[in-house]
Structures are given as structure tokens and as C-alpha cells.
């Protein structure tokens, strides 16, 4: 009896070894695969997977100027850190920059930008900040005051997308990289199914988008789990800002996010399975898809006459917060003439991959 108790005691006190190296003590259970591994092996598999994604998808070529969309959050902080490391380790030959967007959210964005400024020093990467105020003459605080909390994420997302492109053009970047992770992409696949957006559904799992536009953007974290990014940041003691946007609680994405968290508990690989499904969807040839053109007002890419940013901005300036939200028609004829008077015409040209693009504002 004493022998049995002793052997059980030995079992309990003997540390579990890493299932990869079998040398060091296991420090964590990997969220993606549930393997019990040590810290060093976790760093290796995490970084190695991202490196393989970069190489297998030909994301970069030597000499590329890369703008890293940096919000100060965990995803972009880890992205900047890992990309910087891999660039040195594997000689990618990239020029890396941090690009931040100041949406003007007091108590949130002003704090997170301080984090990005620290990242600039910590990682030695030049930083460019572009603000909504200078681009659109509206901050998110002012927008939320005008429209409330129902569709504010729509405004912010649309404006940020264009702001990133404009900021990248200012620093003459060849590519933008963002920290969208596997959880984000899985949520987007589900959201597009729920909303009936077949056009976005066909594009949202592409690792690189906008290749026929001025500045393509790519997502090296496409197959990286959010939990693993958090784990990496935690163990590496990376400096990041972890508070959620103060205006986000009502976002519809929350539905999909909660569902995916529950799914992950039952079957961790479900997140990658959703992405795989998204990649495998074949759209019927009879489905009418939008054609890409340019905005008649500002020259940005758009499938309609006016891009979404122009429509939303017009709504704000005219005191019509619902303009461009839902399925209502955009203004036409006389209204377009009026709206042009509200906005200043200022040419902003930048060097795109396919030549200069006149971008009026």
C-alpha cells in the first residue's frame, strides 16, 4: 500500500514533459492542437507556422516597403514583433513601417496610440499616424454623437479601410499587412453567410486582397488562433493595449464571436474548418457579382458610383445618419450637385503599383 501511494506521489510531482522536445517541462496547452508543450517550442511552432504561411503564399518579395496596420492591440503588436523577427531571421529584405489610424475615440484610441508610440521605439520601426479628423473632418466621438451606437462600427470600418490606404500611399508602401487572425476570418465568413453578402463571402478568405488595386493588403495571421496570439504576447511580455473599443458592444459581429468561442470549446479545429469552408465555396456563375470601378467623387475603388466612405460622409454632413446604411438608394441628380458643394475638392495623388491615381477629396 505504501509503495502504491509513493508511486502515485511520484507521478503527481513528476513534471509533464513537452510533447515536442521531450526535454523541457510543458508550460501550456496549445489552443490549436491541445498539445502540451514548453514555451520555447511554442515560440518555435508559432513563428514557424507564420513563416511557412508567408513563404507558401508568396506574400512578400525582397525590397518591399510594408506598412503594418498598428492599433496598439495584441494582434498588431505581435504582428509587428514577429514580422520584424522573421524579417531578420529569414532575410526577407523588407522595409517595415508602422501605420496607425487615429479614429478620435477619447479614452480608447488616444491610449492605444501611446502603446504604438512605444512599439516604434521598442521595435525600431518608423511610425506614421493618420487621423479621421484630418481626412474626414469628423472624429468617431463626433460621429457617435450624431448617429448613436447602432451603426457606428460601419462608419469606423469603412473610414479606417480608406484611411489605411491613404496612409500607406503617403509613406509609399508597396503592401499593407494587418493583424486579422483566424478567429476574425472565421467570424467574417459566418457574418457574410448570415447577411447574404455573397460578394464578400467569395473574397473574405483570400490571404491577399486588392492585388489589382493600388496597394494590396495581406493577412499573415490568417491561420493563427487569437488565443495563441494572446499567449505569445503574454509569454514574450509584449507591450500591448488590451481594452475593447468603447463603442463596440452592439456590433453584430458579437453574435458570431460568441458562437465561435463556444465552437472552439467543443472542437478547436472548427475555426480552421470554417476558413477551409470559405475557401472551398464555389459561387454559381449565374450569381450577379458587383463590378469594381472607382468612386466618381474621390477616385477610390468602389462597386457603386460613389464609394461607401463618400456616401457615409455625405450623410454625416447633411445630418442624414441613415444615408448609406441598409438598402436605401444613394442620392441622385440634384442631391449629388449639392453634396459636392459641401466637400472640398483637394487632389491627393499617390504612386500606386499601376501608376498614379488621382484621388480627390
Amino acid at each position, binding site marked *: 500500500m505504501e509503495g502504491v501511494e509513493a508511486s502515485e506521489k511520484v507521478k503527481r510531482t513528476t513534471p509533464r514533459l513537452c510533447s515536442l522536445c521531450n526535454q523541457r517541462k510543458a508550460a501550456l496547452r496549445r489552443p490549436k492542437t491541445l498539445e502540451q508543450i514548453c514555451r520555447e517550442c511554442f515560440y518555435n511552432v508559432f513563428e514557424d507556422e507564420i513563416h511557412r504561411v508567408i513563404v507558401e503564399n508568396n506574400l512578400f518579395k525582397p525590397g518591399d516597403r510594408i506598412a503594418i496596420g498598428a492599433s496598439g492591440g495584441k494582434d498588431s503588436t505581435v504582428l509587428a514583433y514577429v514580422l520584424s523577427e522573421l524579417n531578420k531571421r529569414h532575410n526577407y529584405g523588407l522595409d517595415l513601417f508602422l501605420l496607425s489610424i487615429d479614429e478620435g475615440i477619447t479614452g480608447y484610441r488616444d491610449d492605444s496610440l501611446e502603446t504604438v508610440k512605444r512599439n516604434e521605439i521598442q521595435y525600431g520601426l518608423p511610425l506614421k499616424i493618420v487621423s479621421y479628423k484630418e481626412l474626414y473632418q469628423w472624429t468617431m466621438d463626433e460621429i457617435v454623437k450624431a448617429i448613436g451606437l447602432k451603426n457606428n462600427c460601419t462608419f469606423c470600418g469603412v473610414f479606417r479601410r480608406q484611411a489605411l490606404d491613404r496612409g500607406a500611399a503617403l509613406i509609399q508602401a508597396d503592401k499593407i499587412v494587418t493583424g486579422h487572425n483566424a478567429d476574425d476570418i472565421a467570424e467574417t*465568413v*459566418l457574418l*457574410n*453567410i*448570415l*447577411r*447574404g*453578402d*455573397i460578394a464578400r*463571402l467569395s473574397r473574405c478568405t483570400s490571404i491577399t486582397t486588392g492585388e489589382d488595386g493600388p496597394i494590396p493588403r495581406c493577412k499573415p495571421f490568417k491561420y493563427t488562433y487569437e488565443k495563441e496570439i494572446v499567449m505569445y504576447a503574454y509569454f514574450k511580455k509584449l507591450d500591448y493595449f488590451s481594452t475593447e473599443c468603447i463603442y463596440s458592444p452592439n456590433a453584430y459581429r458579437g*453574435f458570431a464571436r460568441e*458562437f465561435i468561442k*463556444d*465552437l472552439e470549446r*467543443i*472542437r478547436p*479545429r*472548427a475555426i*480552421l*474548418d*470554417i476558413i*477551409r*469552408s*470559405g*475557401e*472551398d*465555396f*464555389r*459561387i*454559381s*456563375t449565374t*450569381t450577379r457579382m458587383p463590378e469594381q470601378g472607382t468612386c466618381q467623387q474621390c477616385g477610390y475603388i468602389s462597386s457603386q458610383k460613389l464609394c461607401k466612405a463618400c456616401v457615409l460622409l455625405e450623410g454625416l454632413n447633411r445630418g442624414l445618419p441613415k444615408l448609406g446604411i441598409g438598402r436605401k438608394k444613394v442620392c441622385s441628380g440634384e442631391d449629388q450637385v449639392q453634396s459636392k458643394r459641401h466637400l472640398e475638392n483637394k487632389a491627393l495623388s499617390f504612386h500606386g503599383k499601376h501608376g498614379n491615381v488621382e484621388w480627390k477629396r
Partner: protein
Amino acid sequence: MAVCGSACGTNCVPKDTEGEEGERLKRLSLEEESSVRRCTKCAEEEARKECNGLCAGCFRAYLYGKFKLAVTSNAMISPTDKVLVAFSGGPSSRVALEFIHEMQSKALACWDASNSQALPVFTVGVVFMEECNISDELSDQADDVIAQIRSIVSGLSPPSKDLHIVLMESLFSSDLRKLVGSINDATGREDFVRHLRMLSLQRVAFEFGYNKLVLGLSASGIARHVLSATVKGQGYSLPADMQYVDTRWKAPVVLPIRDCLEQELVTLCNLESLKHVQVHDKRCTSINGLVSSFLARLREDNSSREHTILRTAGKLKPFNFNKFSSNQYEYVPSRLRPKFQFIETGEPESSEVLCPICASPLTATELATTRCSQQMKGLNIKEMEAFYLSCCQSCHFQILPKEETSMSCDGFFDLLPKPMVKRSLLRDEIKDYLLEDS
């Protein structure tokens, strides 16, 4: 307005609006007083709250109209067909049975009245699959359920229908309970039972000479399938199971109530007192259960969400087997045949390779992996290995045994129903003679 004098009552109607219009106005004014809402379609009967502003009659007609449109626009049922309706006892399949019965009755009445009686009327049979010995459902309720099923089917007015109550495990010589019990993954177990169910229904159809199988799958059921298949990585094969027609099977499967929401079908059952078996909500720890509760939350937020999901998935490309071959349309007038998409007899059949367990088409990546593995193993490949290699990635993950499970791969393979194994072997026998697709 004419002045009639003090003798007139409060319901006085001016002379120039007498007649039908007058009656309508009279009714409307009475309604305003009694605040009774009228049907938005016929404006005669009282609108029912649960019927989206319609009266009970118009609501039924609306649902029957959807059913009839699905049947006629896809030429689902032709006069010579012998149709088998899969009846689980639930409200969706109950309504499917009711509508098929009504369609058959009308067709019979037309035939009776017709001078030539040249075209026959399709026959209908009903099958109930008894599964409680395989899954963990309470077997003491099974007798009650069967009694209710018999009562429902026998209660349908003429023409009478053959009812087949089939014990699933009696159809195959395998120990299905042991087989299902050996699957560790809860979702895999449920999905495997579903695949067994389809195999069983096909077996019954074959044995009793039915050439079409009707499933009471509603729009809500399809929305659940869309989300479930997406989260299981089955995006490629997802469209296969949600079309009106599926000819992968010997008895093609048709879904005539595909456009009706589950809630609408439940409402109809309540309105018309259609007897059906109460399905007890089981606590599901599987992905399928999670998807059901997620969809229920979405429905509370927006009742049209299921239709939107269906519409999105409807824009995905269906497969060649999701349409009939041209000889299925011989009873459709030739002027209408161009409306139907069909495979011309003589055209090469679908080149999709199907998983032997779930019958899902394999993706190009899965096929390439299968071929590569088979080539590596060479001629000495065992039957069991060849079978496992031909399964899709989803069945591999959630159904087939892994090293750490109690049952060995050989043991699991030995318990599989022969029709499931045979499906894989048939292709293997001829694969060397099949030309590669360009």
C-alpha cells in the same frame, strides 16, 4: 353624403356605395370599432397573429403554394412515380405528408373525371425509421410513437398509403449499436446515424420498388445544415444536400417543403390540428446542437435570418447530380422542357467522387491526397485501408477511429454496413480505367 333623416341608424351607408363595396366599407367601419384585423390577402377572414397577417385559410394556401411551386418547377413528381415519404412524425414531415396526400387526391380526382385516363396517378408510401436501439433515445416511448404514426397514416383519407415501420438495425447484418457507440465524437455519432438513416431509407425504397424519396426538410433545417457544414469544413460539398433534387441515390431525394420555415409548418399543424409526434428537445453537446441554439438566437433577433442564410447558400454552385436526367421529364410538355435544367442522356455523368460514408463530393485536395496515399501503398493496400483513404476529411476526423480509441480500425471496418463499403469498392475496381478530368 346624402342626408337620410333621423330614422337612420349609425350603420347607415350612402346609396351610391351599396353592394359589394358597401359591404366592404361596412365591414371596415365595424372593424375599426371592434379592432379586428383582417387578412391582408382576402380581407375577409380574421388575420391570425401567428400567420404573418393572414387568415388561417390564406396561410395554408400560401404554404401549399410554396410546396406546389417547388414540385412543379422542379418536376419532382411525375404520374408514373412511386413516391416514398420519409415520415419522422415531426411537424415538418407531417406537413410534407399532408401536402403530398392532397396533391395525390387532386390528381386522382382529375383522373376520375378525365375521359381518356391516359396518365396514371403517382402512388405514395410512407416509411418510419425506428432508431432507438442505435441512439440513446428512450425505447419505452418507441411503442407510443409507432402507434401515433400508424394512427396518422391510417387517418389520411383515400387513397390509402402503405406504411413501412422499419427497424434500422434489421436492414443490415452489422451490430449498428456497437458501431455507433464506438464513435467518440458526439457530432460524429449524430452525423453517422444520419448517414445510416439515408442508407436505410434507400434500402427500403429499393426493396419495395419506390423510385423517389421525399424528405420533409424545411428552410430552417437547411439553414442549420448550411451553418453545420460550414463549421465542419464541408464548404465544397455543402450545396449538394440542400437543393430541391438530389440524384446521388438510386431513389432520387426531393425536398418539396424546402422553402417553408419550420415555425410556419408548426403553425399550420396547430391551426389544422394535424396530429404529429412531439419531439422532445434533447440536450445536445454536439456541434449540431450548438448550431441549433445559435440559429434560435438569430431567429429571435430577426425572423428572416433563416431565409437569408438559405438565399446565400443558394448562390453556391450545385452539382451535376442536383438535377434530373432528361428522361425524367418525359411527362412535362415539350414547350415547357427548356425551363428545366437537366443532364442530356448521353452526356458524361458527374465526375464527382463521393465519400463512401457521407456521400459528400471530395475536394480536389482530398482526391489528390487519396491518390497519393494509394500510390504509396501500392498493390498491397488492404481493403480497409483503401476504404479509409477514400473518405472525406470530415468523416476522417469525426467518425473514423483514431489510434487512441477503444475500437481498432479493422474492428470498425468490419462493422460497417456492406452497402457503405461496397460504394467505395465499386469505384476502386474501375478507377484505372477512368480518365482524369482536364
